[in-house]
């Protein structure tokens, strides 16, 4: 019942066969990808497609590779991936394409020749600039700050880091003192933040560019009793940061709508497999909303800043 009545089911869902869409996150445990999966599932239901959501329990290029190869043998129709390691995953994806399986990437891109489209949650500039500007605003444009990232190998985090460094040039009085990985793990992020704070007592702000890092850093600041003294911002999920934002530990969380990202990835995958979306298209419309396509990047739109004022309006 609901499938048919689903608004976005549109022409595609009704006509043609039921597709099997396989979605690969960097790691299953990560709430960021779980919320993307939520959106993806909604979209799949709407399109009357089957969604397989599987990934490594901890970020692990080899496992990602093996999971994709498993899907190839299972004969899925289209694959949507967020790559932990460009090179490692691309080898498997090319194999998939050679077997006639369509591939889109989302959140973290692979080699261009290993997929048709990249669903781009935000350009590195967009993210880097919003993060750096927000940081400067909170720190009063001066003082030491540290960055916690996913893993020093993570492709897109490194992209963002570049544009952060670019933007940093506009704030000469601000000094980046640490750039530490947390392996997309809240626990590690927390101990990293703790260590950073005792190593750099004048630290004014911790910025996390991976979602588990934000609550991790906040937890550390709270436990160190430095609430307000050391500010916390980063890319994160509203839900896992609400408490900290309200208690004033975390000032702002910057992100795009991850459920929308997941949904868009599935819609793109579906359309690509059905041929309604082709390389070279300049825009892509889902249920009335139009996303522009820059080259082979389907743009999700501008990042969004969650803070005390608005965070409660979001649930993911």
């Amino acid at each position: 019942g609901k499938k048919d009545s689903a608004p976005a089911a549109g022409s595609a869902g009704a006509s043609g066969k039921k597709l099997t869409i396989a979605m690969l996150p960097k790691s299953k445990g990560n709430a960021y990808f779980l919320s993307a999966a939520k959106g993806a599932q909604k979209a799949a239901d709407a399109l009357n497609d089957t969604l397989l959501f599987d990934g490594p329990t901890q970020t692990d290029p080899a496992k990602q590779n093996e999971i994709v190869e498993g899907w190839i043998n299972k004969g899925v129709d289209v694959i949507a991936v967020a790559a932990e390691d460009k090179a490692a995953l691309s080898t498997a994806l090319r194999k998939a394409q050679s077997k006639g399986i369509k591939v889109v990437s989302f959140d973290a891109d692979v080699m261009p020749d290993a997929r048709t489209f990249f669903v781009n949650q935000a350009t590195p500039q967009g993210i880097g600039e919003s993060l750096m500007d927000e940081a400067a605003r909170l720190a009063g444009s001066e003082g030491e700050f540290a960055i916690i990232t996913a893993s020093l190998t993570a492709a897109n985090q490194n992209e963002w880091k570049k544009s952060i460094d670019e933007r940093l040039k506009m704030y000469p009085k601000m000094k980046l003192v640490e750039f530490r990985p947390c392996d997309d793990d809240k626990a590690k992020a927390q101990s990293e933040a703790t260590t950073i704070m005792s190593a750099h007592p004048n630290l004014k702000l911790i910025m996390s560019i991976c979602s588990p890092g934000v609550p991790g850093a906040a937890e550390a600041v709270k436990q160190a009793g430095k609430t307000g003294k050391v500010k916390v911002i980063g890319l994160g999920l509203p839900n896992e940061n609400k408490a900290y934002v309200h208690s004033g530990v975390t000032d702002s969380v910057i992100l795009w709508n991850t459920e929308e990202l997941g949904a868009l990835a599935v819609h793109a995958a579906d359309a690509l497999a059905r041929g309604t979306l082709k390389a070279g298209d300049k825009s892509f419309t889902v249920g009335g909303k139009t996303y522009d396509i820059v080259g082979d990047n389907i743009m999700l739109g501008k990042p969004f800043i969650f803070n005390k004022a608005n965070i409660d309006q979001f649930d993911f």
Partner: protein
Amino acid sequence: MNSDKHGLKKLLFRHETLLLLVLVGEWLFFYFRGTTTNFSGVTVGFGTAGAQIDILRHSCEIGLLALVMTPVILTGGIDLSVGSLMGLSAVVFGKLWRDAGVPIPAAITATLALGALAGGLNATLITALRLPPLIVTLGTFSLFRGLAEALTRGADTFTGFPASFQAIGQNNWFGLPAQLLVFVLVAAAIWLLVHRTTLGRSFRAIGYASEGARYAGLPVGRRLATVYILAGLGASLAGLIFTARLNQAGANTGTGYELFAITAVVLGGTSIFGGSGSVHGTLLGWAAVAVLSDSLPYVDWPREVGGMLTGLLLIVALSAGVLPKFLSAWRARRHSSRSVNPQPTPSP
């Protein structure tokens, strides 16, 4: 064999002193290289109470595992399953509290019971079926971790525990981390058990010569059961503290901890063949590893070097212990006049 034990016994003494020196050396190094006063005159870095407390906090769980691993190794056994059991405990605790709505105290009790049960499984396979501990616990190593992952499908994690529970892992009691007090209590208990009770005695006897212990009328099976159940309890306790510290419980909790714990015990001078060793040795070994693995950033060294240094320390410390004995044995064999060693044959 015999003279080997002798060697390792001697080694044990040389060891604890040597280890203490290493530890003090480490500490002073980090203290002088890793502590600075910033322009506003505040002391910062390794030397601060905060840093010291954090080092203790972060290594508390491995310390607990090392403590309960010590009796196991004293009996000549080993337990590879403690790390996985940490994960299973964390997950089960999380599920009980969040999904089954069990109140925290009951959930804690149930989790510890689970730990004891898991230890009991190891013990049964080892004593009743006479399977080698290494194999049994290698099996439960996969089993427990697998259960934890199956329960969460590798995705589900548990968080948002009540503050009263998080306090165990995050608050300070009397200026010390709460879990440190738990740790001290456990350490004291294990120390007394090993060094002051007949149980500890029988652990050593079993480790040195389990047949001999049997001929002396010691209840070997029951004693072995004790140490493995104890290890299980310790592992689940570590899992709980870990959960409280991070306010997060996942299936990957404690991955790889078993080998770190064994490293600490062995570094502490406990013979892997069983029999000789001490709880304070384990504590020293644990401290040496803890400082190494958590303090490098204070001196702006890459944290990654920690693992390398740990391995190096283990090898060097043990070689240093054996070398003199080895040389003397070798000299003895050259101009073999009278040797004090009851066994003339070179130890295997």
